[in-house]
């Protein structure tokens, strides 16, 4: 049974297959509108994440399927103390595919080990969030026409930002990738990510705290939010949260075909004035996220022998 727990569960070829399917869905939405007729997606959200849940639900509805599930742990049997393994076994009796969000790292893997239907990790604590990475990859691919030979800047919270680690991981398998890491000292990319991913794949990278000085070399700028919940004390959060605010003047030296991405929600790290700049891609990214989730649901159902396409 094929699941998506970690972005590396998919080979480069499989990712391309998802991108091709998503592009085909964008071009021919009607052709897909009944592909999952009679199928049920269970959205098991043990912590609230309205944005991700709605994206999965919209994806399933656009495929003609149905959605069951819960949006927080209090309304599920977990509140009565049921294990993730048991929940996965029970839901396997009702649904055809699971999208699971859980505050504990590794919970979706436990579900995958116990379910008899495909499981999609919709975010496990600060660990993995592979469908966000799928959205990022489709956005870059559609903007650039490729996933290789480019310089990608990551800006903001690179220490706790799981979407950053995951995207670096995914891009590390493509040729000609260069990485620029822009963060305050306290939020630098962890050394194990540098060692295990960047050095392991011989990816050239530079670290800086000055966004403007490296702006002109970037093809993609991936902005992130400094998340309050990752800090133990409020003071550190307040001090670091405004480290980088992207304003129009900072884009003076930027390439005309720069693509600005952000996993959203943003707080204030991208000024709203940028929204009308053609280089802003973060709202398109949300839409592409839905298309990639559609492609993913189709692929996993097909591999489970539960869908003709």
């Amino acid at each position, binding site marked *: 049974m094929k699941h998506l727990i970690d972005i590396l569960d998919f080979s480069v070829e499989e990712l391309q297959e998802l991108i091709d399917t998503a592009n085909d869905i964008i071009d021919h939405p009607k052709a897909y509108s009944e592909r999952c007729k009679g199928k049920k997606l269970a959205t098991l959200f043990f912590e609230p994440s309205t944005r991700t849940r709605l994206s999965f639900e919209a994806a399933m509805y656009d495929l003609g399927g149905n959605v069951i599930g819960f949006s927080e742990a209090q309304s599920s049997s977990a509140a009565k103390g049921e294990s993730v393994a048991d929940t996965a076994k029970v839901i396997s009796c009702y649904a055809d595919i699971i999208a699971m969000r*859980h505050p504990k790292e590794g919970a979706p893997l436990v579900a995958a080990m116990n379910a008899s239907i495909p499981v999609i990790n919709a975010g496990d604590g600060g*660990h993995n969030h592979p469908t966000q990475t799928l959205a990022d990859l489709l956005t870059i691919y559609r903007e650039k026409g490729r996933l290789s030979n480019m310089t990608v800047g990551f800006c903001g919270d690179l220490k706790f930002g799981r979407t950053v680690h995951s995207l670096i991981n995914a891009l590390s398998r493509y040729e000609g990738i260069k990485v620029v890491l822009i963060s305050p000292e306290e939020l630098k990319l962890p050394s194990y990510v540098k060692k295990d991913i960047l050095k392991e794949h011989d990816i050239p990278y530079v670290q800086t705290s000055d966004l403007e000085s490296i702006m002109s070399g970037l093809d993609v700028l991936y902005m992130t939010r400094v998340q309050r919940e990752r800090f133990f004390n409020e003071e550190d959060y307040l001090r670091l949260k405004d480290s980088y605010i992207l304003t129009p003047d900072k884009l003076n030296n930027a390439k005309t075909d720069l693509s600005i991405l952000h996993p959203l929600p943003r707080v204030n790290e991208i000024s709203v004035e940028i929204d009308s700049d053609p280089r802003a891609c973060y709202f398109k990214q949300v839409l592409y996220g839905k298309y990639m989730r559609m492609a993913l649901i189709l692929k996993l159902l097909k591999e489970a022998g539960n869908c003709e396409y």
Partner: protein
Amino acid sequence: MNIDAIKNGIVIDHITAGLGMKLYDLLELESLDCSVAIIKNVSSPKLGRKDIIKIDADIPINLNVIGYVDPGATVNRIRDGFTIEKKKLELPEKLVNVLFCKNPRCITSTEQELKHVFKLTDRKNRIYRCLYCETKAN
């Protein structure tokens, strides 16, 4: 000091001095009914000092545990007083309930019945990571 040679059983030899007790615990030898001897600080031409464990019954032994704790040890099966098999040890790909994940955000921290599984992710540097949260074992 003399410990009788065993006739049928298992001898774990060339254990790094000081690791005998740890292996005894991890292999759960205290639950056995047969005689078990731990001999500590035996002089050895090869190691200087070594520990030896002798088990007076031919029981299945979790070689992964020994491979992880002390890959230089040797495991011999004895039958009728003769060594009939020398087991080769190597770092195991997977360890179950040998290492325990200490990450408070890991699913193993809230679900007590889950087995703690660690996977070998870097053989050269002997690095194991939690199967669930990928936290490095230390």
